[in-house]
């Protein structure tokens, strides 16, 4: 009976490891980031084009000139915001991927451990897989909450 329970637990761990692994692989947002960067590159090009058009224009309309300057300033601000957004999202995604890596590794080890059920993997073993302080803080909070 105990052997069956243990085998079942290992099976569940193996399935969960595979599912989290699939989820991690689906986190790839390269296409979205690529589009963001192409947009910022386009904005940069348009901004330069506006400047060039103004320099080569015979007209010296002050209203057009003011609007051009305002458009260039707005484009620069949006470009900066997009850069910040892309960078922050990339880091966030990287962090999520690292957490998923950690969960997959833990579940894979639990799926193959040749030890009695419930003793194959400790919270200390899990903590050894962490790659950031955020993970350690979360770990400590759970350990404290569980009164361990």
């Amino acid at each position, binding site marked *: 009976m105990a052997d069956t329970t243990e085998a079942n637990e290992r099976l569940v761990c193996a399935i969960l490891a595979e599912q989290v692994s699939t989820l991690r692989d689906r986190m790839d947002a390269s296409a979205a*980031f*690529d589009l963001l960067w192409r947009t910022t590159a386009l904005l940069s090009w348009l901004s330069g084009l506006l400047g060039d058009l103004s320099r080569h224009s015979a007209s010296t309309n002050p209203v057009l000139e003011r609007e051009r300057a305002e458009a260039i300033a707005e484009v620069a601000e949006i470009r900066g915001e997009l850069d910040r957004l892309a960078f*922050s999202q990339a880091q966030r995604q990287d962090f999520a991927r*690292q957490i998923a890596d950690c969960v997959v590794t833990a579940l894979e080890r639990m799926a193959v451990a040749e030890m009695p059920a419930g003793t194959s993997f400790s919270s200390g073993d899990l903590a050894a897989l962490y*790659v*950031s302080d*955020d993970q350690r803080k979360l770990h400590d909070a759970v350990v404290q909450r569980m009164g361990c």
Partner: protein
Amino acid sequence: MPVILVLDDSATMVMSLSHILKGAGYEVETGMNGREGINKLGEGIKPSVILTDLNMPELDGIGFIKEARKIASTRFTPIIVLTTESGGRKRDEARAAGASGWLTKPAEPNQLLAVVKQLCPAK
């Protein structure tokens, strides 16, 4: 144009860092782990600054720094560690290996550029 070598096992981070650095006037070489970084140096690339993650497969950031410090051309090249690790132990380990500085993720593009420009102004 100054060359920055970027090492990170996350393709998105590599693309993101490259975009920011290229936009600021730097040439960027990239690698997905420390081994690829060492191979790039072996190919004769002479970076002005190296940005590296710590947790990477094959050869991690600490291992890379140790090996890079053995290569004459990068013995004194500034190496900035860019990682989610902010713990003192890891920081000490990286410093002992030869890291010049540390930037904890999440970082802002301006923070990153300020550090890089201080070490190597874009031309």
